[in-house]
Each structure stands twice: as C-alpha cells, then as structure tokens.
C-alpha cells in the first residue's frame, strides 16, 4: 500500500521536475502565456461564439460609410483598416482560423512524416533508399508554388491550401523521425525486444515510436509558428477563398495600400503573426529543456 503510494509520488515528482525545468525558463513561460491567449481565443470563437459580442463571428464586418483607416482611439483601440474594419475585433476573429489551420497542417504532416521516417529506418536498405529519395524530391518543391498550383487544380478553398501545405510539410518530419529512429534502434532494448520474440511491427510502434516522439513534439510546437507565417503569406498574396474571411495575413494585406498614411493598419495585424511565431518558438525551447536529461539533472 505504502509502496504504491510512493510509486504515485514518484510519478508526481517527475511531473513536478518537468514543470520546474519549464518554469525556470522565463522566456518559455512568456511564450506559453501568449500561446494560451491565442489558444483560448481560438477555442472560444470556434465553440462558444455567442460569448463574444459579434454579430458575424466568422466574417469581417466592413464599414463602407467610413472606409479610410482610422488611427487607434478609445472606440477602436487598434484603429481600423480598409474598408472600415475594426482591427481589434478583426484580429480576434482571425486568430481562430490561423490557429486551427496551423494545427491542421502540423498534426497530419507530422503523423505522416513520422510513420514514413520510422518505417524507412527500421526496414533500412532499399525501403529506406526509396522512401528517403521520395522525401528529397518533395522537399525540393517550393511550397508556395505548390500551394498555388494545387489551388488552381482543386479550387481556391481552405481545404486545398491545407492539402498543399500538408503535402510539403511531412518530409521535414520524415527526416527528423529518421534521424531520431536511427539513434533509438541501436539501443540495446530493441535487441532485447527481438530476443523476447516481438514482431517488427510491435518493435516499431511500441518501442521506437514512443521513444522518438518527444523530440518530434518539440519540433511540432516550433512549426506551428512557421505554418502560421506561411498561411499568412499565402493569404497576403491573395490566396483566400472569400474577400471577407478574417485571416491575419489578409488583414495585413488590406492595410498595405495605406502603409504611408496609416502604418498601424499593416503593422498591428503583422505584429500578431510575428508574436505567435515568437511565442511558440520560445515555448518549444522550453519543451526542449524538459526532455533534455542534462537540463533535468541540473536542477
């Protein structure tokens, strides 16, 4: 009984240690806080839009009576952008789309990439050679060009944008998973599993996969920011299905024509893109510390 308690306590202690490592990194905590703001914004708008005082939570509300951007004031804390869009509410609305799109690209991309990377490494030889060469080929395609091409084929929808990005994002994870797997598969416990009679599938998915996932998670958190930048870039060059879709890159492009007379119209939405990228990067660094045994034992 008491020993069971200690086992639980041990688990607890591990978690506590992880938290300690993470929270000792001040910038990572700052990143986490900012990330949580974005996260809750996305959650609330997605699932409880009625909480917010918006008439149209999923589209921009233009004001053609006064379309010229107005500077920040009491009524419009972030000012307005063309055509008379309140930037504060527009940004709150935009974050939802950007956040879910980033997740929708990173998660399947990472899933596909990790599976391909692990299969390639564990089987080795010809399988490895073929899979990694395919990875190289896909890796060499510029993603913006591919996204535009797919947009022409499948139509300019959010889905086609997502598909295009997933298609080019997995090679990164395939390579990453391969490098981690190469390391894990040489550790003796894999040999022990073979001596125990485990099948290749079991070894791959029950031994190698769990051991190569933590670094992949770190990579995913870092990638969230990059993907949001990419999506914004696509929206900025006009790759959006509808003209009043709230999206940060699109908001930035709306203020583009007024950059000399109303710089806030471009700077403020742009800042929110950069802020998210920065936050997830800082947070990812914190997670990397958590899985790094040297950092753990230093505390």
């Amino acid at each position, binding site marked *: 009984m008491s020993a*069971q308690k200690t086992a639980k306590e041990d688990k607890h202690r591990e978690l506590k240690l992880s938290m300690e490592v993470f929270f000792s990194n001040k910038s990572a905590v700052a990143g986490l806080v900012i990330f949580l703001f974005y996260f809750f914004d996305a959650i609330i708008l997605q699932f409880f839009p009625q909480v917010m005082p918006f008439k149209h939570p999923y589209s921009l509300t233009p004001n053609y009576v006064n379309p010229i951007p107005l500077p920040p004031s009491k009524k419009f804390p972030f000012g307005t952008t063309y055509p008379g869009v309140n930037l504060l509410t527009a940004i709150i609305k935009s974050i939802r789309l950007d956040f879910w799109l980033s997740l929708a690209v990173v998660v399947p991309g990472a899933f596909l990439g990790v599976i391909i990377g692990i299969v390639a490494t564990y089987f080795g030889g010809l399988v490895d050679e073929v899979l990694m060469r395919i990875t190289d080929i896909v890796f060499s395609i510029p993603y913006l060009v591919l996204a535009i091409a797919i947009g022409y084929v499948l139509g300019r929808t959010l889905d086609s944008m997502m598909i295009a990005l997933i298609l080019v994002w997995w090679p990164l994870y395939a390579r990453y998973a391969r490098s981690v797997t190469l390391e894990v598969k040489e*550790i*003796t*416990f894999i*040999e022990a599993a073979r001596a*125990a009679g485990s099948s290749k599938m079991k070894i791959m998915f029950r031994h190698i996969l769990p051991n190569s996932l933590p670094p992949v998670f770190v990579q995913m958190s870092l990638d969230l920011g990059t993907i949001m930048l990419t999506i914004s870039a696509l929206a900025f060059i006009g790759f959006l299905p509808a003209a009043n879709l709230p999206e940060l890159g699109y908001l930035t492009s709306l203020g583009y024509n007024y950059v000399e007379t109303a710089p806030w119209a471009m700077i403020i939405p742009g800042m929110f893109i950069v802020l998210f990228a920065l936050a997830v990067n800082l947070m990812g660094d914190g997670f990397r510390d958590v899985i790094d045994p040297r950092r753990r034992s230093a505390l």
Partner: protein
Amino acid sequence: MIIAARKLTKYFEIKGVKNAFIRAVDDVDIEIKEGEIVGLVGESGSGKSTLGRLLIRLIDPTSGEILYNIPDDELEEYDIALENNDEKAAKKIADKYSITRLKGEDLRRFRRNVGIVFQDPYSSLDPRWKIEDIIAEPIIETKAMKPEEAKKRVEELLDEVELPREFKNRFPHELSGGQRQRVALARGIATFPKLVILDEPTSALDVSVQAEILELLRSLRKKYNMAMLFITHNISVVSYMSDRIFVMYAGKIMEKGYKNDVIKDPQHPYTIALISAVPQIKRTMQRIILKGDPPNLLNLPKGCRFHPRCPVALPVCGWTANELKPTLEFLIETKYFTEFPNVSIEIKGERELIVNNADPEKLRQVVNAEKENARVLLSIKEIASNGNSSIIRLHEYKTPKLYKLSNSREVYCLLFDPTIKERFKQP
C-alpha cells in the same frame, strides 16, 4: 547437449566495400550441457558477444549449424558425419535439431527456451515501459502464457530476483543500476528458458552489486537448472561462476576445458598470458605482457591468428613475407645500416623476399643475432644468393586446429600438434 554449434561462422559485410568482411566468429565449435555454466572469455572485439547472439538467433550465422536440445549420441554421430563429409547423414540429424533455419512461429516458440541478459542495464530496458510490461514482454510475445497468468508470473519473478513486488508499476529510471539488472535478469528467465546468455551482466555494475548479482545467478541456476553462457572479460568472475571455460581470440576458440584445468594449468600461450594478468594476493605476479594489438578482423594473420603476438611462436605458425619485410627493413635501416648501404627489399610472393645489394652471409649473421628479439626471423628457412642480391625463403606455415589433450580439454595451438612437435623442439 542443450545447444551445440558446429563450424559456426559470422562475417559482417562492410557496406560499400566489395569482398571485405569482418570475421567476427570464424568456424567455431561450442557445446553447452543441460544445467551447465560455460564461461566465454576473451578481450574486446574477440567475437564473444557475437557468438552469444548467434546461439540464440539474435543474428543469423553466415554459415554453420546450431543444434538445439540434441542428445549426446546423436551429436557424436553428427560429428562423425561431418568428419567423413557424409552430407546426407549430417543433414538428416541437422534437420531434426537445427535452429538456424527457423522462421516465424517456430522461431518464436524457440525463443521461449532461451533468454538473454545484456551488459548495460541502463540501455537494455525501454525507458517508456513499466517494469511489469518489460518483464512480461517475452512471456506474452512468445505466447508462453496467457496475459493474466503473465501478470502473476511477473510478481513471482520479482520475488525471485529479490525486488519488492511494488516495483512492477515503476519505470526504469526510478531504479538503481543493480535493481535494473535484476529486472533484466527477471526478463531473461521469464519463460523458464533452458539456456540463458549472460552478456557481461556484471561489468556495468560496481563491485558490491556485482557480487549480489553473481550470487543471485548461482541460486537461480540451482533452482531452475538452466544452462548459462557467461560472457565476460573478467577471469575472476568466470572462475567463480562457471563449470567450463572457453577462451576466445579474434573470432576463434583458443582453448576449452574444465574451469580448474584452464585456470590452474593453462596450455595455450594466449591463455597463459591472459591468466597471468589476473591480480593475485600474497604472491608476486609474473605477468606476461603481450606485444601489439589484437589483429584487424578484416585482414587476419595467416595460420594461427595469435602468432604475431605469441611469445613462443614457431617458424611455421603463419609468418608471411608481408610480416617479415618491416622487421628486416627496420633492422637494416637502423642498427645495421653501416653494413647494408643501398639495400632495398622486394616481396616476391607470400613466402619469398628479395633483398637487393645485400650479402647473404651478412644477412644470415644479422638474423642469427636478432632471432631472440624478433620471432618473425625464426620463419626464415634459407637465405640464398642471387647475383648481387639475396633471396629469403620462409617456412611453409600450417594452420592449427583444436588439438585434444584429454577428453575435456582442447587447445588451438601448433605446440600440441604431434607432427610439428618433433620438428621444432623447444630448448
């Protein structure tokens, strides 16, 4: 015999290089009786771990046969068949007991009968698995028991290796090195195996923990009556643990015999040197320090692979012109350089050298004077004159085999070859 291997060979291919092989295990015969502890000693890189892994099919042999659970008389029949090149008879026996061609379900069933404990308890346990799952893995994967029974068995095993039962819910990183090795041991014996390979199970532990683990191993052997192959480079541990000892060097068995015979009365020059290096209490050690390094397994010496380092190597132990040339060059260019101006040495084949611009008589004098310091010079059969230069011819070498000294004792050394002994009697 619980397991016997005949002509077991493992060559590792080198990627990207054609016809280059690392000869990790080369034509090895080994046999382990039921319930017997066999010690396998040798230095790093001698192929002892590879041999252990081969025996339980963790790696596949390049050639050779591994026979599992073969009665002694049939093994004898098999040996006779091999000697007479009677392939038909050999195949008939091999088909019955061989495990070299097992696959799928059969291989899995065989895995029930064998276990392995690795050297490093820190890397041999999956850090993301609970102790319970680690120990139960071989039971469940080989379908030795049902999952519910496996749980019970795990508790039994934890008792067996003297760990508290509550440890089953822990993760490996919560355990100390000795505790981890006990877990690894529990996993190794989980399926009641008849043979356990212990691959240096104590060398990663500190001395007090080592002693505990060794005691535990002995008590487990008594209880389960399993055979063990104890792989180590630590002679004292082997002499404490094992019934018989195999000494391995560069992929070959050098000597085998009962523990007391090998330790107290080593016969092979390598074993003698090895045992002379064991620290002793209240006695002055007479260490024999071997020169040089273990050979490159890619390019092994001819004849006996120990001859370049052997302090009593004979002229026929496997010397070749390639080995003689550097020694001669060294002597001619340093100590005797005044006597041999403008000398160059050419290799003319495996057993022939030409020394240009050298007088055979002078060469003979040098060789005679330096014989004591460099055993390679012993291999010179004759020095003939050929105009301006001399031709050096070497003795033809002979490759040794395991010579039987007694029923239980075999030594891989030409010193025990009756035909050779006559010709090169040592003073």
